[in-house]
């Protein structure tokens, strides 16, 4: 019985370790500001099939939660602080994101395109 429990734990642990090998490559950074419950820029164009780093700076005096169902990301950004989120590699398309605490105003979109150089378009 104890062996079985150990094997189960070991197999789940091994699975976790197997997934724990992020690619050690340079990651392009994209900066986004949150001010008056609005994202600037609200449209972020990133290259397809590439991991990128979003650095979101909350310039408001209230916290906000960056949330995206299509990107499968959620992160609280405290008042007047920065937060980092890695996204991708993604297929070409449009991926919505919003501020969970102010979903009517704080909205934006990540546009994933095939491109040579990364762009940051407002």
């Amino acid at each position, binding site marked *: 019985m104890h062996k079985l429990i150990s094997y189960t734990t070991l197999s789940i642990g091994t699975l976790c370790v197997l997934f724990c090998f992020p*690619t050690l490559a340079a990651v392009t950074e994209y900066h986004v500001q949150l001010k008056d419950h609005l994202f600037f820029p609200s449209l972020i164009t990133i290259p397809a099939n590439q991991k990128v780093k979003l650095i979101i700076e909350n310039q408001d005096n*209230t916290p906000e939660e960056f949330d995206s169902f299509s990107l*499968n990301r959620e992160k609280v950004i405290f*008042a007047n602080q920065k937060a980092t989120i890695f996204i991708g*590699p993604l297929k070409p398309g449009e991926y919505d994101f919003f501020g969970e605490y102010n979903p009517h105003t704080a909205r934006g979109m990540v546009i994933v395109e095939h491109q040579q150089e990364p762009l940051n378009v407002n």
Partner: protein
Amino acid sequence: MLINTVILFLRDALPIFVLIVYLYEHLPANKLWLLKSVIAGALLSFLYINQINIISQWFDGKGIELFLWVSQSIVYFSTLILAYELSRNHSTNRLFLHWVAGLMISLTMVSKGSNFVLYLDGYLNQSNVLQSILIGTFLGLGICLSLATLLYLAAQWLKQRWGPWATWLLVHIYATGQFANALPLLIQVDLIDTSDTAWSSQYLISNEYEFGHLFNVLFGYQASPSIDQIIVYLLALFTPLAVFYWLELNSTSHLGNKQ
């Protein structure tokens, strides 16, 4: 703000209600452990919120994600302990079970409830939204209590019909969903690499809508899960089921041999 508060309640408070209801029905008699767990969870949440700025700086800014992932993992493995104790029914230590269940509730309160407390903390001092938030809180609380009552009755019926393994299965499905959904936390801080999206059912049931939230709580529904998430979900769900089913078969045949 009103609708937003209701949705936040569904997303962050409903998982706590569901787990409490399942464990309340699953564990036998003496419900004092539940009150103690809720108080411990509230105190831990208070501590967590107070230290959240420091925790967020841990491990090069990965502190919150790691904390939440570890919490969900502990809740998942606690479910396996509950099953193990159930499989050796002749010597079940009730106090130990209450500690395990208490830990599960307290950690869920910290990991899920803290988000809601942060929201309230940030916006309650704004007088123009106070009324909306309070009405939203009452509405959200009402929805959570109604759903919790329905789930309690369903769990009670299942337990009467199929015994304590039925309620354990409910807890296991819930904990597996939360465990698999914690995987993106590690991906978003670049601790593990992501894989392709397995499918997208956003057009059918989006995670943004009420049913999406409800199914996410009940069995970890994701409209666009990654292949990693699917693998982890299936392994985490079916491996313990196979192990404990095999153990039950073994113990039954042992009893049969003794007789």
